[in-house]
């Protein structure tokens, strides 16, 4: 049994973390912080958790050491506080971008601030069990990657490892639901602005570019769209091949990478409505579905990845890392299969 604190519990990711951790058989949540909600019940910000807990929010400054601290604050807020959390002896699982990038020079470029503790960037382990399971088992500081980055990395990394990609940049076209921008997304999140939207909100320069490049070694051309959905990310990756490739080779490549992974499914079916990955049916699940197609005309592979941005793309991924780190079965508290129809 681990005593767990959640820092920044009132946001969408914090709520999803609490939903999972409240039903985790090896977790006792001792503290949930939120300066804006201090003194109020968890159910006030997360109505789905009504009567599931008697916990109330406390201020960040009242936080005391825990076995594991999940940090779900906005980017930039945990950079300074993390050394103190680590000094208390517990594990820190950070869901912000503050410890994802190993190169400190990238923080001013993508996050507009120098990193105050670059010495921790080398220690931090990226929270992708599919890539770093063994390192996660002993990690003190785990940085869960961004939702779009998670999808794109899982779609592309097997192709990179199999040396299938040519020298051209890889184009990643992502579509995201509105919860990906958080609870305080400003005017862009208003129903009047968001309803019916198909907006290219970041035609280039999105900060997840750095994470995807770090983990694939490829030059990434990322364009991000907002679409009419609450949850979900679909990353469509257009990668130009180093040589002609048959679909069977891609099956072998992806099966070799993910055949035994509990939360990555290869979805490329010959018939039916859901032949390729579709985020809609993944809402609330920790799955990342990966699909692909070969475009022989353009010598291109189209690699697709779908996930729930709040789950595999954030809180679910964090709980999966928690399970790996502490030796619990990796699927604990993450076994929801989703809804259909939804």
């Amino acid at each position, binding site marked *: 049994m681990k005593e767990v604190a959640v820092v920044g519990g009132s946001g969408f990711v914090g709520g999803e973390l609490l939903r999972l951790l409240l039903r985790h058989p090896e977790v006792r949540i001792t503290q949930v912080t939120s300066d804006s909600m201090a003194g109020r019940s968890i159910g006030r910000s997360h109505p789905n958790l009504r009567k599931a807990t008697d916990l109330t929010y406390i201020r960040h400054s009242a936080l005391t050491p825990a076995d594991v601290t999940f940090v779900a604050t906005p980017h930039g807020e945990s950079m300074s506080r993390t050394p103190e959390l680590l000094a208390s002896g517990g594990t820190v699982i950070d869901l912000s971008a503050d410890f994802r990038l190993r190169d400190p020079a990238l923080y001013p470029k993508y996050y507009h601030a120098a990193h105050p503790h670059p010495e921790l960037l080398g220690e931090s382990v990226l929270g992708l069990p599919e890539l770093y399971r063994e390192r996660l088992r002993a990690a003190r500081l785990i940085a869960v990657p961004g939702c779009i980055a998670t999808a794109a990395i899982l779609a592309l990394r097997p192709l990179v490892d199999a040396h299938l990609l040519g020298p051209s940049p890889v184009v990643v076209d992502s579509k995201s639901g509105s919860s990906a921008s958080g609870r305080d997304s400003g005017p862009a999140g208003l129903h009047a602005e968001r309803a019916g939207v198909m907006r290219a909100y970041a035609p280039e320069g999105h900060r997840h570019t750095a994470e995807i490049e770090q983990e694939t070694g490829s030059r990434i051309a990322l364009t991000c769209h907002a679409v009419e959905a609450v949850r979900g990310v679909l990353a469509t990756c257009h990668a130009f091949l180093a040589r002609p490739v048959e*679909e*069977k080779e891609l*099956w072998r490549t992806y*099966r070799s990478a993910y055949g035994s992974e509990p939360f990555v499914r*290869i979805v*490329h079916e*010959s*018939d*039916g409505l859901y032949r390729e990955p579709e985020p809609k049916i993944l809402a609330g699940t920790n799955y990342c579905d990966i699909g692909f197609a070969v475009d022989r005309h353009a010598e291109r592979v189209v690699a697709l990845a779908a996930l729930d941005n709040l789950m595999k793309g954030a809180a679910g991924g964090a709980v999966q890392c928690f399970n790996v780190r502490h030796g619990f079965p990796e699927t604990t508290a993450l076994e929801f299969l989703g809804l259909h129809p939804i």
Partner: protein
Amino acid sequence: MTQCPECEATVENRAMVIGEIFPCRDCGTELEVTGNEPLAVMPAPKEAEDWGE
């Protein structure tokens, strides 16, 4: 045991009979059993739209 001719997924013999049609577990292709000692499969013919009238 054999492989799906479309995606190379392992197909195990579950006492299937010749002519039996079943979906590949990985790619969903409908496969028809064409032999069982050893097991052999091929993509099942799709339903034709022209019935020869």
